[in-house]
């Protein structure tokens, strides 16, 4: 903890004794929040497991409709963005404000690329009638529960996409505060917390990609 050694009084809220206590509290709180995220997605993963164990053939058939190439590109893009945000935190620890800004900017750019690719994937499916549940009209998969697979697909990737969108929002806010000179090696808690959040978004995708795209 580079910041632990020096105490920045102005950043310490009234109920903390020192910056170290405040920083470690924030970090513990964030890890608990990440736990709730895992439980939140966990429900969907359980739904996936149950439907897949009942209909293993459905999942291998339906997965052929997903574009593995685009999924793989998106995986690389997201892992790259995890690297750039880790570098942003590193820059904060090294007190290099300029680099925090550029690394955050590149993370936002990569996140946007991810969403754009996702948009093209979604629209390509909507065009052939692959829609969730009741609206499903595609006839290319010979299975009565094909609609359920795509409901699960849209719910999981949709919720994940929403998290990406929230991450972009958080990082835009960070950009504003970096510009205002709010962060330095003395205090960069929000950058670190956003980084943790971004890693969980990344990890969830790393599970989604093989479970959805790579099972055929």
């Amino acid at each position, binding site marked *: 903890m580079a910041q632990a050694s020096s105490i920045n009084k102005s950043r310490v809220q009234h109920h903390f004794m020192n910056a170290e206590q405040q920083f470690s509290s924030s970090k513990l*709180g964030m890890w608990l929040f990440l*736990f709730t995220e895992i439980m939140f997605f966990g429900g969907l993963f359980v739904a996936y497991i149950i439907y897949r164990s009942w209909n293993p053939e459905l999942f291998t058939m339906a997965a052929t409709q997903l574009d593995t190439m685009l999924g793989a590109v998106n995986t690389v893009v997201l892992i790259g963005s995890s690297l750039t945000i880790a570098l942003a935190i590193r820059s904060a620890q090294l007190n290099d404000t300029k680099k925090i800004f550029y690394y955050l900017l590149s993370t936002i750019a990569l996140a946007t690329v991810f969403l754009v690719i996702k948009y093209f994937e979604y629209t390509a499916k909507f065009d052939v009638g692959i829609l969730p549940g009741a609206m499903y009209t595609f006839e290319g998969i010979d299975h009565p529960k094909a609609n359920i697979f795509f409901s699960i697909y849209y719910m999981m990737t949709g919720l994940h996409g929403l998290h990406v969108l929230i991450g972009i929002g958080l990082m835009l806010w960070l950009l504003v505060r970096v510009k205002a000179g709010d962060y330095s090696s003395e205090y960069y808690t929000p950058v670190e917390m956003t980084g943790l959040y971004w890693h969980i978004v990344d990890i969830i995708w790393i599970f989604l990609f093989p479970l959805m795209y790579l099972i055929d």
Partner: protein
Amino acid sequence: MEQASLNAKKLKVRYFDIDENPSEHYLNAEKGLKSWLLTVDHKRIGLMYLASVILFFFVGGVLAVVLRTELFTPTENLMNADTYNRIFTLHGAIMVFLFIIPSIPAALGNFLLPMMLGAKDVAFPRLNLASFYIYSVGAIFALISLAVNPIDTGWTFYTPYSIQTGSAVILITLGVFIMGFSSILTGMNFIVTIHKLRAPGLTWGKLPLFIWAMYATSIIQVLATPVLAITLGLLIMERFLGIGIFDPALGGDPVLYQHFFWFYSHPAVYIMIVPAFGVISEVISTFSRKTIFGYWAIAMSSLAIAFIGSLVWGHHMFVSGQSELSTVVFSFLTFFVGIPTGIKIFNWLATMYKGSIDMKTPMLYAMIFLFLFTIGGVTGIMLGAISVNVHLHDTYYVVAHFHYVMMGGTVMAFLAGIHFWWPKMTGKMYSEFWGRIAAVIIFIGFNVTFLPQFIMGSQGMPRRYFNYIEQFQSMHQLSTIGSYLLGIGFLIIGAYLLHSLFRGEKASSNPFGSRTLDWMTSSPPAHHNFNYTPVVYNGPYDFHKPIADFTIGIAGSDEHHGHGETVKADKAEA
């Protein structure tokens, strides 16, 4: 860490007198509506929660009395069947999601937790305020759904009916979804506060048992509530997009919904009852004037309940078509939760044994709790037995069981807690005479209401029915009369508590002679709880030591406090 720095700096520790007549305290430190609405003070947030949950308890209670009135005769006498369905659903949903889940944790917990830890506030005060507003927004959604088209599915929102019904399911589930985040944030806040903000010297072994109970509760809130969120999220999408995951018409599975729902909602009953255990531990020890018996057993059994309680959800679905194997496993695990709960009951009894018991109102409620909760718990074990369950499933026996646990347990402990900490919260004493009278009325009213329901249930009276065959009429009438008695009891409580706010006797800082840190501050407490950083040497239940040993603070003022006027007498230096 704190201990180490304590030794390293060789701080002088002195005894302080508590300011018995605080001219400045948290209630008058800032004035105006804005100072309440935008406060980050955990005590004020706790009081705002308290006011909200009491309001919703009143609404839910009125609905209950209306339901009982309809059931006075076997046929329709107040409302039609459709209205009845909506009203029992609202009674359940309001009592569960708007009252009982935030009752002890968010109201009493917010008020007490930082004080018991010797902290100035919770770890994330702004997040705490946000969580109150998130709760409010959720409550508003629930209220709008009342105005639009009150829901008629039962508080469990079971599919497929919740997908088909014309009532406003999306609005109320969205409300519950939003309130869930409030619960998660409160839980996170408490866990971090307990880990990081304990006063110097306050080791894990010196934590009051209320804190241990809140710790276990917070873990359940953080782990289970997100699952409810995703479940209700999927239910909303089910109605919105027709995704079909829970809809058999589209190839989905309604039993999966029940699994998801109870994966949260069974642990949720421990969110409701475990904080009550914490209150009871404090009350029984204080009014028996004895060190709590089996401190670690009580502390660890809270965590054991949190853990095992997360693995028993399947006992709600013995007749929903789950496999025989899982039914047996869930039944066994359900019996298993009885063990840590029994450990608590016996430790409380052992605490009282040869204590000098003072039957003040909080203690009276604690006794009522022990009596009613034990009945509720034992009938719960009976319902966990598969063959008995098949017979009693969806009867009034189940209704009586969970009212004995939730109302006889949590609400009685909540009442014990409100009376116990009323002097601390308001600086006023309630009327002991009326307190005891109301407690007795509530005890009688409660049993008259719910004991007949056990009997009706075992004879086959199904729950949620708007009419019934004549053989159950006398039982139903008894139950209805009991509910009126209960209502009278609660009105008396409301009246004397309100009266005490304006005309009550002034409370001293520690009217009941407790030993925990929340009593080592003035009544009402100072704006930042303590005017000096408390240093803890004694255990929370050291009733064998004189009370004078218990007001300890670091000498000198540190810059965070700035109210340095309270240093009155230095009795000794350590």
